[in-house]
């Protein structure tokens, strides 16, 4: 039994398991090629022999030459390995570039992407959805189901990160929670100018999503980046004055739930050709395009919360 055990301990599998569990470095254990090991063992034996008998051990000159040849072969094999891997990479890159040459020209009129689907979106989109920025109209109405799933993916990702990184209140180290997390003078001075502008721009992108480029995801990401800069410059304690865990929970769950309800209504009416009760309004006005504006804002809140939560969880293990 003990023999089997010791066999397992010296095997490659055990070494790999130890490496995975972080006990030892894989390279130091068994990665050494066999012949090098043999040399090391032989050297050890030689030393032992000289220690005990003080007689230089006799060596077969042929064996020495064999070992030398083997070493040389290994060297050549390694070189060949490098050359072959580079050649393989070049082959794959070449094949890909060759295939790109057969693709239709970028933005060409005869490209397969330029078909009746996009034409219909461009022709009927504005009167059907009431948005000027067709991208927002596409992702929130025609492809609303995709965006619905994506927002939930973000929510689930935050939950996964929370499970992995969240710590109790007592476990949060003092240095991160206290004054240590405050940035230096340069960062704080610049942040004082930049944070309001970033947040304002994020709000503009968010609320104006149906009129100009942007929308829920971009605006939310900008607002989240602004929040991250604020907390990096002024510390988590000053961020917690207006954005603590309670507010975060309410905002995140509330916005996601409301968004789900709205988009289900939207999809239901859209799929069955029923007119939505929410009027589309005048095209180009800030309050127009029916449910797209509130959905944009809700998605933005969701994304901003996710971005900030990621940072806070990575940084100190809690909000």
């Amino acid at each position, binding site marked *: 039994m003990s023999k089997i055990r010791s066999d397992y301990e010296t095997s490659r599998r055990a070494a790999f398991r130890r490496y995975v569990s972080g006990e030892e470095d894989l390279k130091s254990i068994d990665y050494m090629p066999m012949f090098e090991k043999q040399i090391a063992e032989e050297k050890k034996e030689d030393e032992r022999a000289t220690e005990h008998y003080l007689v230089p051990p006799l060596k077969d000159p042929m064996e020495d030459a064999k070992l030398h040849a083997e070493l040389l072969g290994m060297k050549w094999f390694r070189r060949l390995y490098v050359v072959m891997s580079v050649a393989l990479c070049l082959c794959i890159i070449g094949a890909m570039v060759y295939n790109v040459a057969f693709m239709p020209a*970028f933005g060409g009129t005869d490209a397969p992407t330029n078909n009746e689907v996009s034409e219909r979106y461009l022709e009927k989109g504005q009167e059907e959805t009431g948005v000027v*920025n067709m*991208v927002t109209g596409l992702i929130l109405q025609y492809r609303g189901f995709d965006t619905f799933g994506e927002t939930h993916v973000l929510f689930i990702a935050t939950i996964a990160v929370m499970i992995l990184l969240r710590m109790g209140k007592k476990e949060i180290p003092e240095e991160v929670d206290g004054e240590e997390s405050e940035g230096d003078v340069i960062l704080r001075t610049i942040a004082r100018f930049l944070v309001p502008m970033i947040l304002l721009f994020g709000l503009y*992108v968010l609320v104006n999503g149906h009129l100009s*480029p*942007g*929308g829920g*995801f*971009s605006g939310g*990401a*900008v607002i*989240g*980046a602004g929040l*991250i800069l604020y907390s*990096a410059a002024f510390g988590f304690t000053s961020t917690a004055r207006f954005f603590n865990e309670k507010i975060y929970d309410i905002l995140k769950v509330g916005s996601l739930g409301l968004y789900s309800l709205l988009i289900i209504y939207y999809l239901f009416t859209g799929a069955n050709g029923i007119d939505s009760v929410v009027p589309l309004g005048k095209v180009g006005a800030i309050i127009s395009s029916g449910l797209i504006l509130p959905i944009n804002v809700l998605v933005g809140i969701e994304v901003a919360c996710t*971005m900030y939560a*990621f*940072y806070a969880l*990575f*940084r100190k293990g809690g909000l």
Partner: protein
Amino acid sequence: MKVILLLLVLFLIVCAVSASITKNVLVSIIIFMSYSLIMSIIWVFLQAPDLAITEAAVGAGVTTVLFFATLRRINAIDAQDKKEERREQDKK
């Protein structure tokens, strides 16, 4: 216009290659950030301003900060400082 775009693409490729072959992780992340920034300018050139805003905010901003936070958490950034501190303490 086209010259600027070509220059940007060239810079993009240089950034991508150097980010992957740099030995220092910190330097690699900063190069990756500049890669995202250039990419967002290219999105504007390709008439996709929506993507440009998102790329600038997520690629250059949030992702980089998350990488830094992770490095800090696994003590990869502070390691050098701490070593020097220890050396100074040993001298005393």
